[in-house]
């Protein structure tokens, strides 16, 4: 009974992760329907395989790892037809020019879309979900040194992209960055 109660608690925790999973999935693919599918598939797999979880404390990383694998599987299936990095940011997700904040959101997302898949994943896991590097290493199944180098290169690239988005004009994002500490 105690085991079952523990399983039930874990199941609820998996369900509670849905908003976080969706946010990260969306940051990876920038496609709401696909993000929704990835989350559904990951949750389904997590719920049905919950008994295989070795360490309850690692539940979040474990579920995110499942979603990472779902995303990889999707990528493999799409490889012949769709280049993930060439996907356009959907127009209805680009509330450009409506407000300064929305424009910044759109610019950051556009820059994120131009990152490689590996870089986008590591930035999302660290910046959106606050995973420790060791957890990201678990989620992505790569050494921690790889996590650090990917993250470093990803952020450098992201910053460069944001600066380049408006050649000749000061980027609102850059303005925000520079004015914030002056």
């Amino acid at each position, binding site marked *: *009974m105690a085991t*079952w109660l523990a399983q*039930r608690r874990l*199941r*609820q925790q998996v*369900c509670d992760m*849905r*908003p976080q999973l*969706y*946010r*990260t999935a*969306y*940051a990876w693919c920038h*496609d*709401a*329907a*696909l*993000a*929704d*599918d990835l989350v*559904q*598939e990951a*949750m*389904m797999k997590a*719920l*049905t395989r919950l008994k295989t979880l070795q360490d309850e404390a690692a539940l979040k990383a474990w579920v995110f790892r499942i979603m990472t694998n779902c995303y990889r599987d999707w990528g493999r299936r799409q490889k012949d037809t769709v280049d993930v990095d060439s996907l356009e940011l*959907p127009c*209805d*997700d680009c509330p450009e020019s409506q407000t300064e*904040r*929305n424009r*910044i*959101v759109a610019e*950051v*997302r556009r820059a*994120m879309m131009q990152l490689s898949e590996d870089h986008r994943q590591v*930035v*999302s896991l*660290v*910046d*959106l979900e606050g995973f*420790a*590097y060791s957890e990201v290493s678990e989620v992505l199944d790569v050494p921690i040194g790889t996590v*650090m*180098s990917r*993250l*470093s290169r990803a*952020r*450098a690239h*992201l*910053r460069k992209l*944001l600066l380049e988005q408006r050649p000749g004009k000061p980027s609102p*994002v850059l303005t*925000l*960055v520079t004015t*914030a*500490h002056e």
Partner: protein
Amino acid sequence: MSDLRPSDEILNAFVDGQFSPEDRLVTLKSIAGDEGLSREVCDMVQLKELVAMAYRPEFLPETGREHHGAPDSRGPWWAVAAGVAVLALGAMVFLGLDRDRIAGDPPIAAGDAVTADAGHDLAAAPGHDQRVLLHVTEIDSASAKVLLDDVEFMFETALLNGQDLQVQMVVHGIAMDLVRADLAPFPERMRTLVSTYPGLRITACGQSLARHAREEGRVIELLPWVQEVESGVHEAARRQAEGWTYIRV
């Protein structure tokens, strides 16, 4: 630039709070002594905040299905299928049943009892309604609690995914204690479930009720939130014929 300049990886780890307090202090001293480095670290912090802001929940499309219009036939089923799988597992593992016993049970109607794998079959079945019949024929107090927990979990999962789930519990035989006003082990829990989830209906077999009344020589009251059906077996067969997913508990 100093030879002691921390690497970009180290600076990022500093920004992400990955260091022990001692290591953090060492890096902090390096950063504090170099204006360019300080600015770089501030930019990293701002960049991190910008990424977080760009994906704040209020800026995300609420649902992929609304976003793209055409619903994906897979998605809506997964969560419910997971609930069914969990419920079936719960029934098998915690209600003291196993696959052999289930396989050996005489079928109530045309189909056999659902196993955990049936959740996947359900998920794969296009156009299948999200309607589940729980045929409760034998249950003790501890198992009843588990059953109610699983029912709640199914509805929570369905709600989480915006699904319209219907579950009918058909109680009969020696499981009737579950719904008797004088013997029910969890009357309040059942009342809460029924009032919380409109898709849940708890029904009791009229034939079983009449038999218990005869044996005890008195009128037996059901819980107010339990509906009486003429025959539990007939109700189970009827629902199965209507396409409901059948799970024997």
